[in-house]
């Protein structure tokens, strides 16, 4: 894997990735570089260094990255030197410690950000449209400023499901003549032998995020997956995985199993079908560690933190939206009175 320095090839200043043109823009000299151009420049400048010393190259993989640890919640995020984390993206705390990163498994692939911060701000502001019960917290500039682009670590698992599954199936037929109604119940034992593969089932590798929240932010389009490069991180934060793959796979297996049972059930052509004995087994073919782009913001409402996230590739928004109790009561009472008066008038004068 080629590791890029995030320096502008023309002026040497720090350079950041721009999701809009999928290039690296230099704020100082205005130059724009594609991945290829960055790589060419990089190869030329580091060739002699690399050939001298293999161990140096290995260290360089993680060199140039800082790790920030939140004193309050313990979250760890990675940023390159060009990007500074001023507050914890998970709890909003500003007391965070900066360290040089030293160890860890490297992601193999990454989907670079496609949505820029302005799109994320617009999208978050639009959540309250058509949601009258939502507190208006995205009108607050303080909250808008906290919107941060974070690469979230995910595991992807390739799984193979094989084995037998039996269903208890029934058909019920009813008919009648003049005197009686007849009900005929046929019960079958349907046996199926199944085999199927699942590719790249996504599992959240960060314990910071609610798994359900990360489930909801799916799907990501894998066609945009590219080989991982530190250069994509410039301008964004990245989280280190803290859920091991052997823990994450359980969630992937559960989802694969449910789908396999569903598919087997669909192949049984009876009215009701209940799986009776399930001898399906799931084997892991391979797993992968990838980074996916997410715009996120934490909002404090009534002493509780609410996380909102936008899929940095597709723009899909997820989050647990709290109810504004005052508005909820107001709207309920208003609705109740209006509808009661209307229905009274209709019943009294029309009905």
């Amino acid at each position, binding site marked *: 894997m080629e590791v890029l320095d995030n320096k502008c090839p023309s002026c040497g200043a720090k350079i950041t990735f721009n999701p809009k043109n999928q290039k690296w823009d230099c704020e100082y000299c205005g130059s724009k570089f594609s991945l290829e151009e960055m790589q060419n420049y990089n190869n030329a400048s580091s060739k002699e260094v690399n050939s001298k010393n293999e161990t140096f190259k290995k260290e360089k993989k993680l060199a140039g990255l800082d790790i920030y640890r939140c004193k309050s919640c313990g979250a760890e995020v990675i940023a390159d030197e060009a990007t500074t984390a001023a507050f914890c993206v998970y709890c909003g705390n500003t007391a965070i410690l900066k360290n040089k990163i030293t160890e860890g498994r490297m992601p193999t692939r990454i989907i670079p950000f496609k949505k820029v911060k302005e799109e994320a701000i617009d999208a978050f502001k639009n959540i309250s449209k*058509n*949601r*009258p*019960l*939502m507190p208006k917290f995205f009108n607050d500039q303080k909250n808008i400023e906290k919107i941060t682009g974070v690469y979230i670590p995910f595991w992807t698992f390739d799984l193979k499901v094989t084995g*037998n599954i039996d269903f*208890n199936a029934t058909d019920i037929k009813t008919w009648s003549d*003049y005197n*009686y*109604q*007849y*009900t*005929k*119940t*046929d*019960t*079958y*034992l*349907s*046996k*199926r*032998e*199944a085999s*199927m*593969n*699942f*590719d*790249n*089932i996504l599992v959240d590798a960060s314990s910071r995020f*609610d*798994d*359900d929240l990360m*489930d*909801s932010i*799916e799907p990501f389009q894998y066609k945009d997956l590219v080989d991982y490069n530190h250069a994509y991180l410039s301008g964004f934060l990245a989280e280190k995985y803290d859920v091991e793959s052997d823990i994450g796979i359980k969630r*992937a297996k559960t*989802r*694969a199993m*449910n*789908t396999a049972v*569903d*598919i*087997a059930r669909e*192949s049984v052509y009876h009215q009701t079908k209940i799986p009776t004995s399930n001898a399906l087994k799931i084997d892991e073919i391979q797993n992968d560690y990838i980074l996916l782009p997410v715009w996120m913001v934490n909002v404090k409402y009534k002493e509780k933190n609410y996380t909102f996230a936008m899929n940095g590739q597709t723009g899909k*928004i*997820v*989050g*647990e*939206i*709290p109810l504004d109790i005052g508005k*909820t009561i107001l709207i309920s009472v208003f*609705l*109740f009175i209006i*509808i*009661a*008066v209307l*229905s*009274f008038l209709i*019943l*009294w004068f029309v009905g």
Partner: protein
Amino acid sequence: MINITPVFASTNTKERTEENYLISSDIKITESNKNNILSTPAIDEKEKIYDFADLFTEEEEQKLYQKISQYIDSYQLDLALVTISQNNKSSPREYADDFYDYNNFGFNNTKDGLLFLIDMDNREIYMTTTGAAINMYNDYRINKALEQVYQYMTNQNYYQGVLQYIQIIGDYAKSGLPGKQDQKNLTTTICYSIIISLIITIIIMVILINKNKLVRKKTTAREYLNKDSVSMKNIGEILVSTNTVRHAINHSSSSGSSTHSGSSGRSHGGGGHRF
């Protein structure tokens, strides 16, 4: 001792002949209904109780006559009670219809009224309705009334059964025509509006609250399925058991009043119940 026959002995019949059919002038005599007329006892329609099967004591008949008079005065519907031990006609319905029509029961031109028949021959109770009584007693009310009294007949408690019957048809007449008894009433209208509003408000609020739910756990992985890799073999389809059960169908009629024509050509509603 000379037995003075009271009004209630009610088995006094006059003789019908081809010269004098003793029927109301609005009924046309034809070849087909001639026999029906001749086989129908001609009685005095003012007596109201015709106990040919002798199911009631004289005292009971007096009390029943009072009840029947009350009913007739209250609701302007004629009411006759007939019991027979031998039915010389094809069905209780035919007997009841003929008895009503050829004896000139019923008020107004539409012959409003009803007749309750206890047919010991067929062991069936039958009520026939005419004119305004057809609308008052729809199929539902007729079935309900008969259902509530037939057991008395089964238990040979005829007097109580008829008392109960008069009570029930009186209650129905009091509550008005079916479907029209819900008069507009301020408190019930307010109650209905509140209930309707409560339901609609709850539905709207549930929809609004659900809009705030943007997080849903994923429990399946269908989007990651490699469709080309799916192989699903049917390795056995065994019929384990089959069984058929049957339930008797209860032939209950609709909420309307179904009518038929008697041999006289008049229209009747009605219904029967075996006991």
